[in-house]
């Protein structure tokens, strides 16, 4: 093993931690032609996410969304995965690190282990682990789709080692396995080490550990999970009965609410509590009463507010704004009594529940603090990685980057963004010429199936409850047995897991299949994965047909399972009929254009451009207005006190002076064509029209500061937005000294029917400005009228500070909005209701600051969506392809989103997303060629009458009549729409992959009588 470690540091990155963040970073790097060493302390990869049951907002099963990534991790990319491995020592500097790694013994030979489970059956005490609820702790297959797909043994728990060795038929158990140590040389490091969950045992008042029916949110996830201790049955631990009343208590161990709690907000808990409550209703019983005790609902991510509203309106989840005092247990029934003081109430109330879920947050373990010590990176007071004010993923040590929970508490989409951002930053320290092109994957040669009778295999995925919970997959599978040309019909549990893909591959080989139908989710997301499996089995990838029985089947017909089963069978019949006529096809390739067009010259656009330029790519940065800037131009300081102006000016300077960046101002997008890797976009630059060829497009067009016509905004000089106030404080500090009362109103124009989402940045902006006013004028009285204070993560500490300094925070509901009147002497009269006193208060204010937030850049977004053919949300933001796992990718390959064009966010968050877009873009840009697919039009020359109809019909002017007198279509230029094929009167043109007989066969399949 030593010899191989000599690999050059010039193209190598060490990724520490193989949770979702680490995996994303490793994949982005490897797909960009980098060599990656991915290590994890645990025995299998996946981190915390693999223990979750489902994730919001799609309420999808996590393992299903994640396992394609896991399988990807196991593909032929240059990723060396080392589990049970830690960093012992780090030497060197950015560009040339030398790291010593130590690997604990697994006692299993990964090459030999087939994961048959015999050892588990014989010695459950040393080979099993159900996270959270299983006290038999150590090792092993942490979840059924674990990677590496092999067991691991804790020898110290084994009574009879000889017997254990004997039980393994594969001879994979190595009793004398020893720790190993290796040295690796890398150019940069990504620390994605995650975090630990807060242990509520410390908080006696909640009785966790003493009362069996008080569980943590993670334990609740495990109870809901099909691979959990109850096999997915919702029962409470004390008596295995179905609970009728479940309560969630928020902020357990977060926001300094209890003794021993952490001072920060853990950011993810509000959303996961909502999800758990919704899933409880959706998947189990609608009549279960679900109550969430909370302080502020912090649903400030993209479309999260809509999810919250659904929880209230559609699912009838009850919300109680209160901080429960204690939980007591009935000694006989083990029911739980929660004592709490309702807002505005005058006496303690008590309610009884069958189960209580504690929404516990994140914290950093001492292990991670030691790791940071060994790496030489600084931590903040809460032991999270100390970052840069404007670059979240940078650490105090050049060449080392971070992402995910170790950086700050956050949810999965933010982790994914940071992971891709860390990947792009880490690449800067590598040699751009050392990339290994990844477009040449090694597959076995394709078997020639011409002349063979179709031998169809039908494989139906149960997708856990997603399909299997609605229809009887075994019955579906049976109905295809023995049909003409159907050789195999079987169910594959978790079709996209590594194990199932391997089963599929073997089944293809063993049964000499030459056509494959997979009934599962949408081909839009999973076709490439199954096509890969066909290739590995030596079949051409176009001999696959997917039936979309989940997204267009069980998910939409959950309420009528019998009809859903009928439809699932029909969709599969259609796929079988169609696949019989499938033919092996060749993909067409073209050279990759490595230039990038970045649209929008704000902070996000400039950051993306600079990062790309540093990586050696040429960038055209198109800005609509006369100068670079965007909203950040008018912000002076961040909440943390960093100087935005100085940083911004430096960013502009670097952007305009970089030799790889061409900045075009007064530039608008006129037209666009091509596919990823060979786009051509027409630009109007000043008075001149020009065309730009590029391989990738990044959209960073921003959002617009909202200015709703409310509370006398624009009609009274004392009324301003938080952005205005920021500027005012910078220029007119003297005026502030005379202020007695300042009122701030939150959620003005956000979380309202016209703009239903939260603007995310306003709560911290209000806290920032309040603290700044007090710096100048400590005597000022500041009232912040809010709906929910959403100061997530470390922003919470500034919110606490503001309260300590005397800022008064008063909660209001949309029904009892404050009212504002001019009182004629330059001041304002503000009337609002104090919910604690239960009466109206009237104040004379010198300044009224409105937190108006952002709205989508409707006009620009509409224009660009139309030119580029991109999807958008209803509130004029660009729509990403997967809200959770692909937050910067768009559904059209080659397009990425950065900054507030995606959703409202802070400057540092926008920069992270811009870098993430680069991290994702470089996976395309480092290929030498682009794959144009096989779906191109083909002319049968004997039938062609050279009538010119195709020549006129083609939107891309591809067909022409050649010298031999028939229509010719260049496959490299054909876009694959098939318009010519449907227009051709002689039916001389066929669109490969969508040939007429295939579509006809699909119709036959639909109407086949069974």
């Amino acid at each position, binding site marked *: 093993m030593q010899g191989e470690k000599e690999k050059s540091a010039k193209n190598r990155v060490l990724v520490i931690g193989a949770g979702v963040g680490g995996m994303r970073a490793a994949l982005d790097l490897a797909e960009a032609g980098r060599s990656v060493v991915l290590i994890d302390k645990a025995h299998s990869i996946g981190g915390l996410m693999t223990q979750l049951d489902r994730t919001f907002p*799609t*309420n*999808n099963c996590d393992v299903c969304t994640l396992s394609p990534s896991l399988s990807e991790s196991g593909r032929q990319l240059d990723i060396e995965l080392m589990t049970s491995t830690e960093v012992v020592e780090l030497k060197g500097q950015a560009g040339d690190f030398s790291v010593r790694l130590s690997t604990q013994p697994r006692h299993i030979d990964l090459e030999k282990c087939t994961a048959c489970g015999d050892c588990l059956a014989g010695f459950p005490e040393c080979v099993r682990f159900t996270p959270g609820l299983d006290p038999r702790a150590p090792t092993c297959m942490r979840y059924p789709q674990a990677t590496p797909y092999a067991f691991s043994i804790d020898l110290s728990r084994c009574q009879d080692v000889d017997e254990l060795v004997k039980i393994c038929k594969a001879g994979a158990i190595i009793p004398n396995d020893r720790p190993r140590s290796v040295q690796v040389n890398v150019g940069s490091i990504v620390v994605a080490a995650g975090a630990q969950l807060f242990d509520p045992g410390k908080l006696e008042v909640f009785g966790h550990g003493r009362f069996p029916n008080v569980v943590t949110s993670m334990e609740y996830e495990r109870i809901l999970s099909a691979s959990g201790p109850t096999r997915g049955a919702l029962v409470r631990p004390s008596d295995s009965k179905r609970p009728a009343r479940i309560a969630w208590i928020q902020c357990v161990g977060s926001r300094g609410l209890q003794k021993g709690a952490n001072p920060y907000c853990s950011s993810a808990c509000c959303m996961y509590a909502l999800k758990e409550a919704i899933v409880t209703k*959706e998947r189990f019983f609608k009549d279960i009463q679900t109550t969430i005790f909370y302080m502020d609902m912090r649903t400030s991510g993209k479309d999260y507010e809509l999810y919250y509203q659904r929880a209230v309106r559609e699912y009838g989840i009850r919300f109680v704004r209160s901080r429960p005092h204690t939980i007591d247990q009935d000694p006989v029934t083990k029911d739980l009594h929660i004592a709490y003081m309702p807002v505005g109430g005058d006496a303690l109330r008590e309610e009884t529940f069958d189960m209580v879920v504690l929404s516990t947050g994140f914290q950093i373990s001492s292990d991670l603090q030691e790791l940071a010590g060994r790496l030489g990176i600084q931590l903040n007071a809460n032991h999270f990685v100390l970052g840069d004010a404007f670059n979240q993923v940078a650490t105090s040590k050049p060449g080392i980057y971070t992402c995910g929970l170790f950086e700050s508490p956050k949810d999965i989409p933010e982790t994914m963004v940071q992971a891709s951002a860390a990947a792009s930053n880490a690449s800067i320290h590598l040699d751009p010429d050392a990339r290994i092109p990844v477009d040449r994957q090694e597959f076995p040669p394709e078997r020639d199936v011409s002349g063979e009778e179709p031998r169809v295999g039908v494989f139906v995925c149960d997708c856990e409850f997603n399909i299997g919970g609605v229809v009887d997959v075994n019955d579906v599978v049976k109905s295809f047995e023995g049909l003409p040309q159907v050789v195999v019909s079987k169910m594959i549990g978790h079709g996209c897991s590594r194990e199932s893909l391997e089963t599929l591959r073997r089944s293809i080989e063993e049964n000499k299949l030459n056509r494959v139908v997979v009934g599962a989710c*949408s*081909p*839009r997301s999973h076709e490439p994965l199954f096509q890969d499996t066909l290739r590995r089995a030596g079949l051409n990838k176009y001999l696959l047909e997917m039936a*979309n029985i*989940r*997204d*267009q*089947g069980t*998910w*939409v*017909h*959950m*309420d*009528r399972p019998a*009809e*859903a089963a*009928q*439809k699932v069978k*029909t*969709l599969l019949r*259609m796929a079988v009929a169609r696949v019989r006529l499938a033919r092996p096809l060749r993909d067409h390739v073209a050279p990759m254009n490595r230039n990038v067009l970045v649209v929008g010259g704000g902070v996000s656009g400039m950051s993306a451009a600079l990062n790309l330029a540093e990586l050696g790519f040429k960038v055209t940065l198109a800005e609509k207005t006369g100068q670079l800037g965007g909203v950040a131009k008018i912000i002076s300081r961040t909440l943390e006190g960093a100087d935005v102006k100085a940083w911004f000016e430096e960013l502009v300077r670097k952007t305009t002076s970089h030799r790889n960046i061409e900045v075009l101002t007064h530039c608008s997008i006129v037209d666009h064509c091509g596919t990823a890797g060979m786009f051509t976009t027409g630009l109007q630059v000043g008075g001149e029209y020009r065309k730009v060829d590029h391989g990738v497009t990044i959209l960073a067009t921003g959002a617009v500061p909202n200015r709703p016509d409310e509370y006398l905004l624009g009609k009274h000089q004392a009324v301003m937005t938080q952005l205005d106030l920021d500027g005012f404080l910078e220029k007119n500090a003297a005026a502030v000294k005379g202020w007695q009362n300042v009122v701030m109103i939150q959620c003005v124009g956000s979380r309202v029917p016209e703009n239903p989402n939260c603007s995310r940045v306003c709560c911290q902006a209000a806290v920032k400005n309040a603290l700044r006013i007090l710096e100048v004028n400590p005597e000022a009285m500041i009232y912040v009228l809010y709906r929910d204070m959403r100061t997530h993560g470390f922003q919470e500490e500034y919110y606490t500070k503001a309260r300590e300094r005397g800022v008064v925070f008063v909660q209001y509901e949309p029904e009892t909005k404050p009212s504002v009147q001019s009182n004629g002497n330059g001041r304002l009269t503000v009337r609002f209701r104090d919910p604690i006193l239960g009466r109206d208060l009237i104040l004379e204010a010198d300044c009224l600051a409105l937190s108006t937030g952002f709205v989508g850049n409707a006009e620009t977004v509409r224009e660009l*969506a*139309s030119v580029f*053919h991109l*999807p*958008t*949300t*209803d509130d004029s933001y660009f*729509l990403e392809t997967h809200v959770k796992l692909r937050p910067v990718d768009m*559904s*059209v390959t080659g397009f990425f989103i950065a900054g507030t064009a995606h959703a409202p966010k802070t400057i540092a968050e926008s920069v992270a997303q811009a870098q993430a877009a680069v991290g994702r873009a470089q996976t395309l840009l480092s290929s030498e060629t682009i794959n144009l697919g096989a*779906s191109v039009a083909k002319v049968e020359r004997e039938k062609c009458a050279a009538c010119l109809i195709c020549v006129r*019909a083609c*939107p*891309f002017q591809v067909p022409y009549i050649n010298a031999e007198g028939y229509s010719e279509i260049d496959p490299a230029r054909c*876009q*694959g*729409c*098939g*318009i010519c*094929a*449907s*227009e051709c009167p002689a039916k001389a043109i066929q*669109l490969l992959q*969508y040939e*007429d007989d295939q*579509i*006809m066969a*699909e*119709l*036959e399949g*639909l*109407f086949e009588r069974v």
Partner: protein
Amino acid sequence: MENFEPVVVAFACHYCAYTAADMAGTKRLSYPPNVKIIRVPCTGKVDMLHIMKAFEKGADGVCVAACLDGDCHFRTGNVRAASHVDAVRKLLDEIGVGGERLEMVALSAGMGERFAQIATEITEKIRKLGPSPVRKVSVAAGAA
């Protein structure tokens, strides 16, 4: 015809309508299972023959689901599809099947709700129209 369950074939373009249908799934929006989707790269690929074949085989209704106006991934595919649909509707009227059984709809990739709504409305509309006359003939022929 008490228990008449119409069969509706929807030709959906990959980039918009098909994605919208997936979106309906992601959002768990329920709609009648009568609608069965055939995926095409672009509605411009939907041949008049395909639509006619669907009716011949026994469809009670056909829907061509395209991108919004001006949003076609292939520029003009949805415009061409609209003209095909118009032509086939006339034909259907002439042969007594009824042009109202064929519909063209437009939606963007993000419109999951709209897809579910369209699927519900079309199913109800076709249910009211009753079984396609073609199907009656073939059923009668089968019985005879």
